[in-house]
């Protein structure tokens, strides 16, 4: 253990002050489920660490049609909220009970693939993120937050403080496919939200996890389903586009080839289920 200083700020201003003082040398940690294993094994050797458990960033509230999630709210809190069912489903499919009691929603956005399943759902829900720093706060769409593998828009003196999710009644679907039924890294994660206008898809969000450097949108597949009634042919073409457009990788869980095949399969299944749901509702 080489950590020389561990800070537990009691407020957001205190946390931002610490970031300003220590700069990029300060490792920011919320639930510790990603950082602590690396520290325990000596893979990560930070001189100073800031824990966010006491910083008052763990509130979760509905205000003005938006679910506002404090960055340090736990996955267990996310599982308990009734406002956005797909986020419950994403939390339920992430890790184990003890890990959900520790891991945070904000931390999930910094979890490298194949982890970060909640972020995939947030992407399909058009979530926004608030970043705070010494110069104030800025809000940006989650879709613009990720810039590459383990890289994002966050400046060295900024902190992710809140995630906003618009509450909508559009049909959604979350599928995490892993090698086990629970507590497993994803082969592929698919999160989908379709806006219908009668029996036509007016807008679509198809988000994928574990098949890219970060959670990604299958934009070509989205484009292909908008304006259609999701015929079998449309679904096949869109699923093929999602499979072709993703950037899977090989690891201990699955090969690149398998991840790509499963992306096509599960995008197809998700679209079929949402199309059937639409028929059931008489669209």
């Amino acid at each position, binding site marked *: *253990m080489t*950590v*020389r*200083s*561990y800070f*537990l700020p009691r407020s957001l201003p205190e946390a931002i002050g610490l970031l300003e003082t220590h700069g990029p040398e300060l490792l920011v940690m919320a*639930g*510790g*489920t990603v950082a*602590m*294993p690396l*520290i*325990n*094994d000596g893979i990560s050797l930070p001189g100073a*660490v800031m*824990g966010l*458990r*006491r910083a008052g960033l763990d509130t979760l509230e509905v205000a003005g049609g938006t679910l506002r999630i404090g960055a340090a709210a736990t996955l*267990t809190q996310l599982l308990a909220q009734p406002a956005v069912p797909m986020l419950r489903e994403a939390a339920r499919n992430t*890790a*184990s*009970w*003890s*890990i959900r*009691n*520790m891991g945070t929603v904000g931390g999930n956005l910094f979890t490298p693939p194949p982890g970060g399943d909640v972020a995939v759902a947030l992407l399909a829900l058009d979530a926004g993120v608030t970043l705070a720093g010494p110069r104030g706060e800025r809000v940006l769409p989650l879709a613009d937050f990720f810039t590459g593998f383990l890289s994002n828009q966050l400046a060295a003196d900024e902190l992710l403080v809140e995630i906003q999710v618009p509450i909508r009644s559009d049909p959604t679907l979350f599928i995490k496919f892993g090698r086990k039924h*629970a*507590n497993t890294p994803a082969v592929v994660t698919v999160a989908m939200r379709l806006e219908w206008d009668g029996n036509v898809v007016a807008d679509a969000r198809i988000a994928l996890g574990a098949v890219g450097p970060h959670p990604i949108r299958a934009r070509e597949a989205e484009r292909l389903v908008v304006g259609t009634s999701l015929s079998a042919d449309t679904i096949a073409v869109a699923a093929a586009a999602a499979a072709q457009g993703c950037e899977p990788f090989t690891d201990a869980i699955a090969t690149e080839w398998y991840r790509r095949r499963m992306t096509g399969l599960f995008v197809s299944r998700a679209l079929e289920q949402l199309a059937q749901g639409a028929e059931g509702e008489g669209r």
Partner: protein
Amino acid sequence: MASTIVAFELGGREVEVMVKPMTTLQSALRDQLGFTATKEGCRQGGCGSCTVLVNDEPMLSCLLPVEDVAGQRVTTLESLTPTQGLHPLQQAFLDANAFQCGYCTPGMTMLAQALLDHNPAPDRGDITQALTGNICRCTGYGPIVRAIEVAAQAMHAGEEGQPR
């Protein structure tokens, strides 16, 4: 930074440890306080053998800086164990042969206690869902699930039998 003193509640007793920054709760329990029921398995959050309860909720003590539990209530297998005899969960684990090497047992027991706190009458699905983060390489899990079912019934019956 020099060592700091961290105080928390452990099994109903106020304890203090002097720790270097980011000492894990697991290490403070085992190495400083002599509470060795909490096991050190993977130190990655992957095996569940270090499961303890913090304010009655299961957490992994290998991922928890002890500073984070300052002023909080920590429960380990030591405090679950009665002065005489065994806790119904321990008795059920023993009766059902729910362990061979025993390394996962403290974590399994604490997780089971948390489950029964939340849900006094869990079905098999509830139990297997709750246990997904706790690995056992000996039993194949069947005896553990059965032990928790039996303990739930025994604890339920015990509560009903108590005068109010």
